[in-house]
Every structure is written in C-alpha cells, then in structure tokens.
C-alpha cells in the first residue's frame, strides 16, 4: 500500500469528515430511478431468457450505464447511494403512526421522488405503471388481497424480504472476482443439471458487473489525478491503480481490501434496487484484520481508512440506507476471545465519526477482555454518541446450536439489520417475513371476533355468549386463535417469498454459498444457502401475559365484573376509570412477581412453539423473533384496550420488555423477571432496551465507567452464574434521561451543534433530530427510569 495512508491518518480523517458532510447535503437520490428505467429497458431487451440470466445481464447493463462520479474528498471509489430512495418511514418527517398501512406496495417508492426538469412526472408515471404491471408486483398484490382482512388491522403482517442478509465477502477479497469466475466456469463445464448450469452462468455474468464498475471508476480516478494538487494526484493515482487490481484479484493490504469490499457491496445493493435495507457486514474486524496485519498498519492509520468505510454506509441527507450492521469481537468454538487490532481501530473510527449509520454491534462473552469494556465506556457515557448493541455470544452459540447450526459455523454468527442472528454467508433467514400481533388476537378473542376499534368482524364468532365463560377460558380460546391465524400468516408469508423469488439475485448468491449450491438465494424450490428459515416477529408478549393475570385477578376478586370488563374494553374504559385503575394494579411483568413472570414465560413458550412448528416455502421452520422494531407503536395503534389496563391505540410492550410504566422496582427486579423467559427458543432474536441514567456511574474516566457498566449491567444480565440455563443475549441501551432529551429538542443548536445527536431506536441508531416526533416521543417514554434505577 502507498505510504500515503500510513503516514497521513489525520488528513485521511479530515477527508472522511468532509465526505460525510458532502453526503449529508444531498437532498435528492435519483440513482435508483435511473436503475429502474434501465431494468425496464432490459426486460424488453432480454425477453425470453431465464429470470436468473436476465437479472445478471441487467446488472451488467446497469454497471455500464449508471452515471458515476468520485467525490473530491473520497479515498475509495464506490457508493451505495444509487440503490436507495428517500423512503424509510421512521426518519421521514412526514411519518405518522396513524397512517401506517398493512400493505407493502413495491410501487409506493415512486411517491418518494420529487419530479424535476430531468426526471419528469411523465417519466416517473411510465416506470411506475410498468412496475405495477410486473409479475412480481401482481403476485404481491394477490398476497395482500387474499389476506387483507387480517393485515388491515394487523392480526398479522407479511412482507417480501429484500436486503437483510450477511454476505461473506472473504473469499472474493482474498482471491478476487477473476478466481470466482474461473471456479464458476469450471462448474459450468461439468454441470449437467440445466437449472444449476444456468444459475452458474448467471452468477458468473453478475460478477463481471464489479469488474465493469472498477474499470469505469479507475478511468475517472485517473482523470481526476491529472488536474489537481500533488497530494490529491497521489491519492487519485493510487485509487486508479488499485481499481485495476481489485476486486478482479485478491487484496494485498487493507486499502485494497476496503476498496474491493466497497465495490462488491455496491453491486450487491444495486442488484436489489430500491431499498435493500439491512444488508449487514458481519464481523468486520475479522474480515479486515488479515490485511491490516499483513502490513502491520498502525491503529490510527487503520482507523482513518475505516472512517471512509463507515461514511460509505451513509446515504443522502438522512442516512437513508438504514440498519446496515457491523459487528465486532466475539469468541471461537472453544470460548477463546477473537478481539483483534482491527476491532479497536474500528471502535476508534465509530467513535470519532459518530455517524447515524452503520450500526455497531458487539459480541461479548465470558472471556471478553476488560480492555474491550473499557474502550466501550466512551460510547455509553458521551452524550449524543452512538451506542453499540450488545450480544451475548455464549448464549447465541447455545441458541443457534440447538437450532441446527454446525459448530464450525458458530463463530460466524453475525447480526443482520437490527438484532437478528444469522450465519455470515450461509444463512437466508428471511428475517422480517412475518409479523404476528398477539395484542390484536387477544382483543379479537375477547370481543368474539369484532374489532373494538373499527367494528369490523375479523374472526368468526366462537358462539360463546357469557362473558364469564369467555374469561374463564381465555387462554384456550386465545391459543386456538394464535394457532389458526399464525398458520394463515405462514401461508401469506410464503406467498410473499415466492413473489420476490421472481426477481433472482445471482450476484448476492455468489457470496451466500451459491457457487457451491448452484441455486439462487431466493429460490423457493431448491435451497441455495446452507441454512434457511423465515422470521416471525412476535408482538405484544407482556401485554397479553399481564392481561391474563389481570383476568385471573378479576375472576378471583370480583367475578361479578366479568361483563363489565368486556364492556370497558369495548368503550376504552370510558367513564370507568376506577375499573381501569383496578386492572392496572394487578401484578405486572418486570417486577419479579412470580405470577406475572411465569405467565409471560408461558405465553412466550407456547407462542414460540406454535411459530416454530410453522413451515416455510422450503419446509424449514419459522424462526421465533420477539422483536418489535418500532412496530410496538404502529401495531399498538391498531389494538383496542386490553385487560392489563392498557388503553386502545396505546403502544404495545417493546420486544420482551414490560410495557412502559409497568415495571417500577428498578433494574435488579426487572432483570430477575427477564430470567424467566425462554431465550433458548428465540432463535430469530428478540429485543430489549434499558434506558439508564448515566448519573449512577461514578468512575473517574470513561474507561472506568465502561468497566462499571460491565459489572453492574452487562455481567449480571448476560453472564450471571446464578442465571437461567440460557441467558439473555441481546440488549440495547440509551444512557441518558428524558430531561436531557427534552433539552436537546428544545435547544438543538446548544446541545447538538453538529446537527447530529445519536440515539437508539430498536436495533438501529439514528440521528435523534432526524426522527419523526412520534418516534422521538417513543424514545423519551421508554427511558422509563422506574424500571432501570440501579
């Protein structure tokens, strides 16, 4: 590598910061629209070839035609900007909880582009109309039409999953695209199965897209090197030379490895334009460490280059490519720690840049060195700084091993998007395929199938007239409905997966095991990846369990009020505040109350068993994921009042957490409650959040506080010798107070002079100031100090 990057880390950092500012100034993202136009043209041009080959040939055309440039402050060539639209709801200022629609319309993205002189209304309308008429959109339309009755008020919801995977780029980085093409050519020569043969051909073609982009970028870089200062000339010359080496060949140093990675990632995202959210990197520290070590690059110089790598994940004015996850650290199969030099350099890069994307996750385990905890302290205790998601790698090993993952693959457990554990390069988990709303099912079970919000009949009547009988049998009735509608949900989810399989992804398949299997990642008939499943995000766990407990209390204390409960729920406790207070006073999960905690465990167990018994399009089980990525708000808005005292349209509980305000005995009792839950069954992940007051930590330095955080929060939850057999494995935190956040909102210039104040929502972090008011409020509400005082 050029000495330039080794001796100029400050300059490289300066460039990274100015590159980010340049990206933040972009208030138009038009690339995806150009790509859609090219795709439209290619559909006609390649009419008659197989879908796989058509995808690959289209990708080549895009690589040839897509307008490219290299910003003057870039160190690497390549962008994922052209794969994303300004769409993502939660950071869209116009987002309102009330307007959520239970429908994933792939043509809705055309509403997210403002017409301009170049991109006229007519052009937009033409592409929209063309897409509306595509087999893919028609197939999806059919799924939603068929299940509309249940998706309208979200008994369940399904979506076609794009993005949300973790490619394994290590092979391509090490030996280059040419070697992979050679391997595919050998396979094509000997393959007799026509489907696999075609797939290999499509994969081979698609890899060439990276070579085309590399050459085009090399030419641009070369031109740029001719008309600039000597320092810039050196930078752009190196870029041009490098692009003629990688990704065609294996990388020899960190600079080449990152350049190669960036271009490969760019092609992967373009292939799924628009909006392949949540593609994730996996263990970036392990991916890049061999290249850093090869030249013994200093921590500072490594961090400087990685800062550009991080900027790459930020798209446009609000970092629209959301939920792209980078994980660091972790253990091997013998329990040895795998933290390395790149881990710490990457942490330095994250901290210094403090960008809204990508997401940082850390795998911790019993043998994690204290140095790592010390170095994490600055993230937790710097106001407005990003905080990593925390994973217990010991538990993840246990959960995924039980789920069928081979021992040799466990060290490659990574996180796709927010908190979903997958095996890098080997696992198509369809993580956000289905969404089950236990709160709505409970409401409809109590109301004999009629929505208390809209008055629409959604479930057929069960014929039970007596309120008392209904309440006495509530569990049986509820679980029966869960079984019935979860099965319907699985059908819908599988149909959505079949719809998206009409758009094969040969390039992605090359980094997901396709070169070995010969099948496309999205193939619904042949399994293209070593592991496969479909995700089910389960909502409303503790609202339901606390409701069962409240019903039990009612039947015991005041059985005469059974009718009154049903009436109160249908009127949202109107004129019956006293009755609501009674329900609120019943035991609630999160306070180490045995009754409430056992009930939550029982609901989690039974629902997990129902979900994991469902089969996806390949006959693999659905994966149990108790996470609610801000959908506790959206779905809560569509759920009537519940017997735990929660009012209609109020949020559901977040993930496996107590409903805000229900746990009021501090973090110790809350943690003990959490231990009751069956984490071993949550093979699709789960969500949990602690809002922690920084004033509880008294260490003199950030490093000391990092160790305190380990001792007082992480170790008791994750590595407790007296804890459950499989300990909790996920946590995200916001270390702040509601008062602080209100001040930031009231005086952003004073408290966030850079315009960026990072907070976490679910598994991703975001610029708090970019969020819609509803989500800002949700963060403040769920800080819920009574549930986490230390």
């Amino acid at each position: 590598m050029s000495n330039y990057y080794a001796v100029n880390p400050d300059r490289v950092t300066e460039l990274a910061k100015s590159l980010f500012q340049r990206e933040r100034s972009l208030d138009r993202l038009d690339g995806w629209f150009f790509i859609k136009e090219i795709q439209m043209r290619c559909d006609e041009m390649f009419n008659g070839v197989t879908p796989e080959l058509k995808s690959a040939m289209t990708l080549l055309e895009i690589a040839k035609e897509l307008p490219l440039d290299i910003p003057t402050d870039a160190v690497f060539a390549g962008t994922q900007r052209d794969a994303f639209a300004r769409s993502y709801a939660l950071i869209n200022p116009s987002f309102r909880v009330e307007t959520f629609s239970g429908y994933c319309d792939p043509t809705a993205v055309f509403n997210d582009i403002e017409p301009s002189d170049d991109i006229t209304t007519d052009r937009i309308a033409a592409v929209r109309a063309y897409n509306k008429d595509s087999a893919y959109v028609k197939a999806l339309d059919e799924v939603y039409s068929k299940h509309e009755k249940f998706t309208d008020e979200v008994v369940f919801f399904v979506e076609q999953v794009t993005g949300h995977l973790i490619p394994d780029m290590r092979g391509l980085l090490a030996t280059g695209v040419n070697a992979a093409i050679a391997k595919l050519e050998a396979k094509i020569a000997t393959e007799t199965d026509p489907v696999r043969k075609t797939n290999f051909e499509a994969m081979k073609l698609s890899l060439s897209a990276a070579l085309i982009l590399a050459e085009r970028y090399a030419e641009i870089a070369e031109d740029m090197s001719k008309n600039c200062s000597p320092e810039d000339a050196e930078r752009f010359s190196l870029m041009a030379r490098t692009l003629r080496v990688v990704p065609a060949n294996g990388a020899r140093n960190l600079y080449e490895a990152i350049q190669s990675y960036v271009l490969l990632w760019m092609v992967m995202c373009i292939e799924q334009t628009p909006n392949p959210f949540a593609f994730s990197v996996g263990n970036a520290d392990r991916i890049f460490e061999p290249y850093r070590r090869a030249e013994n690059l200093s921590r500072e110089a490594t961090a400087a280059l990685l800062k550009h790598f991080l900027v790459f994940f930020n798209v446009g004015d609000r970092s629209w490519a959301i939920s792209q996850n980078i994980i660091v650290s972790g253990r091997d199969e013998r329990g040895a720690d795998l933290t390395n030099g790149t881990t710490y350099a990457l942490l330095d890069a994250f901290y210094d840049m403090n960008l809204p994307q990508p997401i940082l996750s850390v795998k911790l385990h019993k043998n994690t060195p204290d140095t790592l905890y010390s170095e994490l302290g600055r993230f937790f205790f710097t106001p407005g700084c990003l905080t990593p998601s925390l994973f217990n790698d010991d538990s993840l090993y246990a959960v995924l091993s039980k789920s069928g993952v081979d021992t040799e693959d466990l060290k490659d457990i990574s996180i796709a998007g927010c908190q979903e554990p997958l095996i890098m390069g080997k696992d198509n988990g369809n993580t956000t395929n289905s969404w089950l709303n236990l709160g709505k099912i409970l409401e409809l079970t109590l109301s004999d199938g009629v929505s208390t919000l809209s008055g629409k009949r959604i479930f057929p009547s069960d014929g039970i007239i007596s309120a008392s009988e209904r309440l006495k049998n509530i569990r049986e009735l509820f679980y029966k409905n869960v079984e019935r509608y979860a099965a319907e949900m699985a059908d819908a989810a599988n149909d959505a997966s079949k719809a998206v399989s009409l758009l094969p992804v040969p390039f992605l398949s090359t980094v997901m095991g396709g070169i070995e299997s010969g099948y496309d990642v999205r193939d619904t008939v042949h399994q293209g990846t070593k592991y496969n499943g479909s995700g089910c995000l389960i909502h409303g766990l503790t609202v339901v369990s606390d409701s069962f407990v409240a019903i039990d209390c009612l039947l015991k204390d005041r059985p005469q009020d059974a009718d009154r409960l049903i009436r109160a729920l249908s009127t949202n406790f109107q004129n019956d505040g006293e009755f609501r207070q009674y329900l609120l006073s019943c035991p609630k999960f999160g306070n180490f109350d045995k009754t409430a905690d056992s009930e939550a465990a029982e609901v989690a167990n039974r629902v997990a068993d129902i979900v994991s018994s469902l089969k996806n399009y390949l006959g693999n089980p659905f994966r149990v994921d108790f996470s609610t990525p801000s959908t506790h708000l959206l779905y809560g808005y569509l759920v009537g009042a519940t017997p735990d005292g929660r009012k209609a349209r109020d949020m559901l509980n977040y993930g496996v957490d107590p409903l805000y305000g229900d746990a009021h005995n501090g973090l110790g009792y809350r943690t003990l409650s959490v231990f009751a839950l069956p984490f071993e069954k949550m093979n699709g992940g789960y969500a949990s959040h602690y809002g922690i007051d920084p004033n509880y930590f008294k260490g003199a330095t950030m490093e000391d506080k990092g160790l305190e955080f380990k001792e007082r929060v992480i170790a008791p939850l994750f590595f407790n010798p007296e804890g459950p057999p499989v300990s909790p494995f996920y946590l995200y935190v916001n270390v702040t107070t509601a008062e602080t956040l209100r001040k930031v909102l009231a005086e952003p210039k004073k408290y966030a002079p850079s315009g960026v104040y990072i907070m976490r929502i679910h598994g991703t972090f975001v610029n708090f100031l970019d969020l819609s008011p509803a989500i800002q409020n949700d963060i403040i509400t769920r800080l819920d100090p009574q549930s986490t005082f230390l």
Partner: protein
Amino acid sequence: MCLVLFQKGFNFSQDGPGNRLVIHLQGCNLQCPWCANPEGMESRLEKCRGVDHFKRWSVEVGELLKEAVDCRPMYFSGGGVTVTGGEPTMQFEPLKEFLRGLKAVGINTAMETNATSPRLPELFQHIDFLMTDLKHYDSKKHCEATGSGNETVIRNIKAAVESGKRIAIRIPLINGFNASDSDISGFTDFLSGLDKELFTVEFLRYHEFGKDKWAKCGLEYKIENGFVSADTVNAFIKAFETEGIKIVRT
C-alpha cells in the same frame, strides 16, 4: 412473624459491598429533622394506612427469606441483603429471625442502624457488615436534634468494634449541628480510642433529597441551611486521616 416494609430495591455499593437487595423496614425511634425517608418514621402500620403517597406492607419473614433467596442472581460483586429503615431494630424479633435465616442460607448480610437499640449486639453474629450512624459525639446535642441521647450508640459502636465485626461509621455532616471546626476534635477524640484497623468512617454531606416527602407526610421540614461546603468536608477528612482513621468515599 411479620416484617413491615416501606421500600425495597437493589442498590450497588452504597448500602454495603457489591449489589444488594436493600430492604427498608418501617418505623424509627428518632426524629432527625434531616431524615431523607420521613415516611419510614412511623412505626405503626395501622396509622399509616390511607396515606396515599407512600406504600407500606407487611410480609411474613419466611416469605421475605424466600424472595431474598430467589434474588441470589443479583448479589454480584460480593453483594447480598441490606436491612435499613426507618430503624430496623424497631422490629427486633422478626429482624433477628430474618438475619439468622439469611446467614443460614449463606447470603451476605448488612445492616444500617442508628445504633440506639440496647439489644443491637445480639444481632452481631448474624451481620457481615454493620453500618452505623454517629450523628453526634455529644449526647445532649444528639438528644436535642433526634430526641434521644447517644450513650447507647457509643456503647454499641465500641461493642461492635471490640467484636471484630466489620463496621462502617457514618457521620452525617450538617451545618449548625455537627460540622464546625470544634466538632472535628469531638468526633476524633472518641474514635481515636477505638482500634482504627476495625472500622471506617464515611461522611454524608447534608442534602435535601427527602425534603418534598416531609410535606407529603404532612410534616414540617425545619432545617433552614444544613448544607456544608466541600472545604468543610475536606477539613474533616484531613483531620480524621491525620488521626489514622480510614475514610471511605462512595
């Protein structure tokens, strides 16, 4: 046998070593005007019922013991159970049974007390870590402020130190009560007579975190300016350390 509680929760290192389940027992024999938990003063459960602002409840000792055992996962970093108040010795018999039960199952015990109970030494064998107040070295002033003299307090502190018990003496520093220059020697004269290897001292600076609760209890908060400066605290620390007394800062 029951214990009456008015608060419980976990706390780290402030009420004994490690992470601890801190159980506040109802009732106190003193009337300290700076008390941060005035709701804990009232001894009789019946009289407190109907007070909206504060909860208090009665628990069988066996039930509380079971809960303490179930809470074991949270006693990390050398933690355990701390009993405090109010003044825990106001419920002496059930308290003794509770502490004995905790020791029987190997749970680390700590107690925070005003040390006015003549029976306090009976509990020493059941307590791993004793935290005791020494509000004033002068009995008359002690009595004027709290309603009780300090003779028993002095006797209990001596007994605790002589028993070899690990003991932390806490001195609340309150302007106008015990924080003048002349008070320094009053405290050190007494403490220097004890084996300094066997106890530590912690100064608790006056605060008003509990002031609002006095009004909610329908009580008048009478202290007008109890705050002490950092310089005052440092002067106490310096003088105590000069005497060879170990100071703890939390």
